[in-house]
C-alpha cells in the first residue's frame, strides 16, 4: 500500500512513540504572533525554562497592529501586547519582523514569502489559519497557547495522528471563479464539520492548475471545515515559487532539497480514511449570507428558506443567522446592499489577489455609499503593488490603501465595521461580531469584493464587464 504525504511527513517527525499515548512529534518551524504568545512566554519565565530552538522560531506582529499612522499607536493595551512581544523575542533570542520591518505582515503571508514555509516541514503557530502553509506540502496546524509554550520549551508536541481526507477537485473552473470560490463552495456543500479530526489533502486537476497563492487561499480555510490542517502535494509550481526566496537553499543546495521534496508527494495508491470528489465546473462565484462560512450561496442564487432544511437545529440556525444579518429567507444574493468592502486577510491579501481586484476597479469609482479598504498581507506585497502602480488605481477609485496587518479580518485594531452594516470581505470568517459588534460579514473573492465596491451590492462577476453594471 502506498503512502500519503501525511503518512510520510508524520513518519519523519515522530521523536517518541509509546503505547496508549499520542506520538511526540518534532516541530520544524514555529511561527509566533503578539496575541497568542504572551502567556506562553510568561509560563516559560515562571518555570525558568528557555526556548529550545530560537532558530526554528520566527515572530511577527499582525493581529492588532494599526494599518495607518503606525508611528503613533493610541490603543495602549494593543501597544502593550506589541512591546511585550518585542521584549520576549529579545529575551529569548527569537527573530522578529516587528512593526517597522520591511518583512512585517500577516504571519501566514510572510512565512511563505520568506521561504520559511517549505515542503515536508511540520509547522505550527498559535493561530488556526496555520493550515495556509499546507499549500506547500507542509503539515501545518494551529495550536493553543499552552501548546505554544510546549513547543517553545521542547520543539515538540504530543499529537495523535489525524485521519486523512482526500478532496479531489476535478475539471476546470469557469471564468470569474477563483480559489476562494472553490473553498466556499466546498464549505457550502459539506458544512463546517466535515473535516473535524482529519487532515485534508487537496488534489485533482483544478488544484494542480492553481498558483501557489491560490492553493494557499484554499488551504487557509481548511479550518473552516473543521480540519486542523489541509495540504497539497508539492510539485513544480511549489518549487518554482520557492526558488530564490530568503530562507530557501540556493544553487546546488536548492536542487538537492527539491529532490527530497519530490519524494513527499502522495503515492498514487495511497489510502485515505475518507474521499470526497468535487466537480470544478459546478462552482460559481460564491457569497456567504449567514454567520458561519457554510452559510454560503452562488451569487446568482437566493438565501435558503426553512423548508430547505430537515432538522429543527438547522432551521433554528437559519433563523438566528438571518435575524443577525438583517436578511430574509429567499432574498436574492445580488439584492444584498453593502456599505463596506475589505480586501485583505491571510486568505486573500497576496499580490495576485490585489492585482485581480485592481483589474476590476481600474478606471472606476467606488459607489458613494461604500467605504472600501485594501490592506496588503505584508509590507513586501505592498511594495510590489506600489511598484506596479496598483495603489494608485485603488486610491483613484476611492479605496483606502493601508499598511499590512490582519485589520478588518477580526477588527482588533481600529478598522471596524459598524453595527448593522454589511461588509463584502475577502477574509475567512463571517461569525457574529467578527468585524465589529453587530457587523454583517459576507465572504467573497477579491474580484467579487471589488465589483461590490463599485456597485454597492453584489454582482455576478461573470456577467459584469468589469466595472459598474
Amino acid at each position, binding site marked *: 500500500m502506498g503512502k500519503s504525504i501525511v503518512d510520510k511527513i508524520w513518519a519523519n517527525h515522530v521523536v*517518541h512513540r509509546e503505547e496508549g499515548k499520542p506520538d511526540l512529534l518534532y516541530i520544524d518551524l514555529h511561527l509566533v504572533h503578539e496575541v497568542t504568545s504572551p502567556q506562553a512566554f510568561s509560563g516559560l519565565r515562571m518555570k525558568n525554562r528557555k526556548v529550545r530552538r530560537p532558530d526554528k522560531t520566527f515572530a511577527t506582529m499582525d493581529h492588532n497592529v494599526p494599518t495607518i499612522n503606525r508611528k503613533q499607536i493610541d490603543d495602549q493595551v*494593543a501597544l502593550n501586547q506589541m512591546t511585550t512581544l518585542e521584549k520576549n523575542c529579545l529575551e529569548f533570542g527569537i527573530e522578529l519582523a516587528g512593526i517597522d520591518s520591511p518583512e512585517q505582515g500577516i504571519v501566514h503571508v510572510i512565512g511563505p514569502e520568506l521561504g520559511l514555509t517549505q515542503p515536508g516541514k511540520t509547522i505550527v503557530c*498559535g493561530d488556526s489559519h496555520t493550515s495556509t502553509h499546507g499549500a506547500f506540502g507542509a503539515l501545518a496546524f494551529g495550536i493553543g497557547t499552552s501548546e505554544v509554550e510546549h513547543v517553545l520549551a521542547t520543539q515538540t508536541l504530543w499529537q495523535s495522528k489525524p485521519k486523512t481526507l482526500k478532496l479531489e477537485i476535478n475539471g476546470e473552473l469557469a471564468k470569474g471563479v477563483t480559489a476562494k470560490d472553490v473553498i466556499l463552495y466546498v464549505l457550502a456543500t459539506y458544512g463546517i464539520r466535515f473535516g473535524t479530526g482529519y487532515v485534508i489533502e487537496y488534489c485533482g486537476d483544478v488544484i494542480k492548475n492553481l498558483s501557489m497563492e491560490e492553493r494557499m487561499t484554499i488551504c487557509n480555510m481548511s479550518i473552516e471545515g473543521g480540519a486542523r490542517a489541509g495540504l497539497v502535494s508539492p510539485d513544480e509550481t511549489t518549487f518554482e515559487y520557492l526558488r530564490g526566496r530568503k530562507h530557501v537553499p540556493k544553487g546546488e543546495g536548492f536542487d538537492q532539497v527539491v529532490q527530497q521534496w519530490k519524494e513527499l508527494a502522495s503515492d498514487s495508491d495511497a489510502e485515505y480514511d475518507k474521499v470526497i470528489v468535487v466537480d470544478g465546473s459546478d462552482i460559481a462565484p460564491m457569497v456567504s449570507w449567514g454567520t458561519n462560512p457554510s452559510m454560503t450561496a452562488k451569487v446568482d442564487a437566493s438565501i435558503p428558506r426553512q423548508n430547505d432544511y430537515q432538522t429543527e437545529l438547522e432551521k433554528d440556525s437559519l433563523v438566528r443567522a438571518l435575524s443577525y444579518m438583517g436578511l430574509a429567507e429567499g432574498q436574492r444574493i445580488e439584492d444584498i446592499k453593502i456599505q463596506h468592502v475589505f480586501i485583505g486577510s491571510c486568505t486573500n491579501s497576496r499580490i495576485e489577489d490585489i492585482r485581480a481586484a485592481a483589474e476590476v476597479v481600474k478606471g472606476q469609482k467606488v459607489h458613494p455609499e461604500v467605504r472600501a479598504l485594501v490592506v496588503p498581507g505584508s509590507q513586501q506585497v505592498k511594495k510590489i503593488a506600489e511598484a506596479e502602480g496598483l495603489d494608485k488605481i485603488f486610491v483613484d477609485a476611492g479605496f483606502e490603501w493601508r499598511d499590512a496587518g490582519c485589520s478588518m479580518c477580526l477588527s482588533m485594531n481600529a478598522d471596524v465595521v459598524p453595527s448593522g452594516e454589511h461588509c463584502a470581505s475577502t477574509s475567512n470568517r463571517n461569525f457574529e461580531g467578527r468585524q465589529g459588534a453587530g457587523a454583517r460579514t459576507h465572504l467573497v473573492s477579491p474580484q467579487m469584493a471589488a465589483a461590490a465596491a463599485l456597485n454597492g451590492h453584489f454582482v455576478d462577476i461573470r456577467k459584469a464587464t468589469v466595472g459598474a453594471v
Partner: protein
Amino acid sequence: MSGFKEFEGKAVALDRANVDTDQIIPKQFLKRIEKTGFGRFLFYDWRYKAEGVLNEEFELNQPENQGATILIANENFGCGSSREHAPWALLDYGFKAVIAPSFADIFHQNCLKNGIVPIVLTEEEVGFLLAKGKEKSFTLSINLEEQSVTDHEGFSTQFPISQYWKTMLVNGWDEIEITLQLDDEISAFEQQREAALQN
C-alpha cells in the same frame, strides 16, 4: 494545575450549535497578556446588550443558573479561532466541564490543557440534558476516574476520554515537565534529522 477525580456542580444549558470561539470570547478582549480575568468577558456579546446592559434572556444570566460549573451545549462547540482565551474565559467564569455531542479539535485540546473536561455524549443524552436544563436548574456529578456523568435522578452515563488525558487530568501533571524528561531523545532526533537533511 491541580488534579481532580470527581466533582459535582450546577449545570446550565446553552442549546446552540456551532458556538465559535469568537462568541465565547470576542476579539476585543484578547489584548490582555495574562491568563486570568477573562471570565468577565465570557460570551460578552450575548451576555450584554449594548453598553454593558445585562441581557436577561441569555441563559447564563438567569438567576437560577448563577454559580453553574458545567456547561451543556450543542454540536461542534468551540469551532473557529484557536484562541486559548476561550477555555481561560470558561475556567475563569467557573466552568470545569463542558458537555456536548461534539467539539472542534483545537478547542477540545485547549480545554484539556487547562483542566476543563470536554465531555462528549450522544445526541440523545445531550438532548435530554439540554431539555432538562431549560426546565429547571439541576446538579450533575462527574467522575473522571469512572468516566461517568449522573444527575442522581436516574440519568447516568459514561463518556470517552483517552487514558493519556485521564491520567494527566487526574494528577494535574504539567505536560512540559514530562516532555523535558525526554530531552535526550529529542536531541538525538535533532541530530539524526539534521544529518539526513544535509545529505
